[in-house]
């Protein structure tokens, strides 16, 4: 009797304290930029009706949780069964190989093959998951402010200098605090740097020291922050590699030009509504290219799952052409599924501005430079972005000279390479 009681007590304690998924439970860690969390919940509810034996739990978390806490959980061999992540390559040794588990691996290769390398260890043919959306960095202009100022919106081949000049004129005319804003992120300033000729990748696959292309754009950028052309609020009022978006200033009509990316379109559509007219502009040009940075968020299976077969069923369902199409159309995201792209999309929005913006981003993918296309699948890209944002932030805050910042970027990256032992 005592033994039975002890066993029952131990079981109860185990059940109460366990965070591991039970058989049939699939836990998904998800963050949202817009409405995609609601769309995903709806899709998963339908999946559970079709598959009553599998219980999918969608944990909606802040992006910071995915960025800061998930990697620690993964290192400890813990975590959810599936996660939506942006750090795809650096953590790829934690992703589950779905190749032997999915119903038709060839279907995955055909439709998601182009980005498969972004999320698997170098040299493997692993199927880790699929991109829930393809993103591309690019600009947005407040058309109403430009129109009211009587200044034409710069054309598709306009340079960063053209945009700075025009935005300054608009800001002065319309008395808004800043002409331009770029999200505080290394990823966001890497694209324009590439347009100025930067190549962050060395011949040996490791990070190369900052070249003249990168230095030229970063010098220009810090100058813009110092002279008030670029918003100080976003870049100066934070430290380290802290991410700050500039979307609030744009949504509130406080800035004529905002450089962010395609994932902001749903938010801009919802938050701006009919308050003012806005357009997507693609990426301004530099001497070498007019490129944005491709990237996106991927849905990956975690190799520490207790239910790999159920996880594969969920992934197979979400990767289905009709489901991928519905997800992209309802969440206003650029899809990664080849078949969906080829057959075309009908984005579910009445907002003509949002539809036009998405079309411009689709078009802009054709002007992405080869270097920019390689960055998402490069192990060291996040390391480079982190060093860029910290040190450029310090230079923008007037804490160090640009030359010192450039030297520090190189030493920071070199130290990380050394620490990693790769």
């Amino acid at each position: 009797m005592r033994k039975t009681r002890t066993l029952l007590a131990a079981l109860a304690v185990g059940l109460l304290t366990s965070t591991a998924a039970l058989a049939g439970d699939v836990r998904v860690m998800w963050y949202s930029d817009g409405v995609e969390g609601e769309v995903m919940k709806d899709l998963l509810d339908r999946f559970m009706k079709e598959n009553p034996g599998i219980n999918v739990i969608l944990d909606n978390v802040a992006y910071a949780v995915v960025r800061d806490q998930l990697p620690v959980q993964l290192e400890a061999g813990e975590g959810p069964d599936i996660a939506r992540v942006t750090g795809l390559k650096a953590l790829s040794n934690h992703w589950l190989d779905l190749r032997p588990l999915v119903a038709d691996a060839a279907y995955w290769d055909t439709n998601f093959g182009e980005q498969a390398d972004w999320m698997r260890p170098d040299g493997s043919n692993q199927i880790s998951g699929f991109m829930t959306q393809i993103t591309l960095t690019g600009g947005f202009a407040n058309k109403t402010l430009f129109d009211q100022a009587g200044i034409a919106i710069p054309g598709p081949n306009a340079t960063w200098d053209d945009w700075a000049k025009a935005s300054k004129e608009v800001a002065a005319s319309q008395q808004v605090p800043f002409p331009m804003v770029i999200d505080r992120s290394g990823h966001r300033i890497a694209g324009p740097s590439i347009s100025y000729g930067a190549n962050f990748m060395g011949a040996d696959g490791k990070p190369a020291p900052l070249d003249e292309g990168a230095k030229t754009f970063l010098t220009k950028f810090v100058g813009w922050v110092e002279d008030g052309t670029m918003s100080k609020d976003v870049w100066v009022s934070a430290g380290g590699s802290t991410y700050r978006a500039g979307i609030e200033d744009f949504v509130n009509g406080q800035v004529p030009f905002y450089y962010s990316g395609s994932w902001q379109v749903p938010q801009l559509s919802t938050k701006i509504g009919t308050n003012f007219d806005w357009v997507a502009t693609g990426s301004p040009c530099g001497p070498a290219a007019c490129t944005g940075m491709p990237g996106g968020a991927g849905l990956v299976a975690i190799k520490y799952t207790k239910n790999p077969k159920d996880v594969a069923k969920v992934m197979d369902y979400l990767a289905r052409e009709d489901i991928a199409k519905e997800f992209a159309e309802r969440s206003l995201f650029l899809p990664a599924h080849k078949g969906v792209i080829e057959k075309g999309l009908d984005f579910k929005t009445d907002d003509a501005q949002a539809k036009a913006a998405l079309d411009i981003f689709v078009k802009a993918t054709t002007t992405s430079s080869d270097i920019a296309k390689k960055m998402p699948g490069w192990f060291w890209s996040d390391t480079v972005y982190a060093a860029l944002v910290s040190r450029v932030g310090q230079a923008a805050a007037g804490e160090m000279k640009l030359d010192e910042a450039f030297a520090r970027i190189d030493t920071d990256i070199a130290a990380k390479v050394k620490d990693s032992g790769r």
Partner: protein
Amino acid sequence: MKADVPGKTGLGIGEVALVPVRLAMGLIDAPLRWLQRVAGISGMAAFFLMPNMLIFGIFILLPFFINFAYSMTGSTALFLSDRTFVGSEQYARLFDCRNYLDPNTCAEDTFWTAVANTGWFVIIQVTLMIVVSLVTALILNRELAARSFWRAVFFFPVLLSPVVVGLIWKWILQRQGLLNFSLYGFGFEPYTWLNDRNWAFAATVGVSIWAHMGFYTLILLAGLQAIPKDLYEAAEMDGTRPARAFWRITMPLLAPNLLVVVVLVLIKAVQIFDEVYVLTGGGPGTSTLYLTQYIYETGFAAQLRNPGLAAAASILMGVVLVVLTLLQLGLSRSSEKKGARK
């Protein structure tokens, strides 16, 4: 109630409530007596201290030793077993500096910037916190109208989560925040307080004082209320001026509480993190980057984490805290001895 009446028999509610306690005591009495015979009186002291020591050992000492072990290892792996032993390399990296007064000459410049920022923060915040808490406690100790209400008002921020504190003040201080809105209303130009290095630093000091002073005020208030009133009455009868009474009666008798407050404020100031992280994120640049944030970012938030370097920095921070606390305790004891001799 019956049992409380002398001469009456039967069990009252109090007696009934004591039954399980007596039963338990009866049960443990025999084994404890046996243990006392075996271990002796001093052994019993150790036995009763053991649960506390066990908790201290598991949750304080063990993590300290694990942390120390991490500080002697390299690589970005999380598990100690996957990490390589590098000896004092992480400490050497932290101390690799041509001029300690100029962080830019150090290999880990952000560490030394964080050390300098924390040093300034501690000096300014601890001084202001003690002065402000003491003045507030002195005021709240007087006969005020609605005294309880004012005491609650000053204590209220202590109940708030640091994240809430950070967000509230961010909404007040940001460019389109409440402060600028008010200034604009009075005809002043708005100012971006959190973009200015000095104002951002001042904001972190001010916000941390606002958030925590209620707690320290409460400790000092308790000390003030424990001072016998007749001492002040006697001083007044002798014609002592209020300022002299403050320095000769209040301060010496408040010294034990003040010492507790100084130690607690100092430790809390060195550990400052959450509200500042939300308010400024360490910026502008690194002007409000404090040691705990450096440790957090190096060990947990940075791309390719370095737990070894973070552990080494936290060990150094712990050593400084222990030294400061011992110094204060030593100073307090020596002043107590001097007071006793007088």
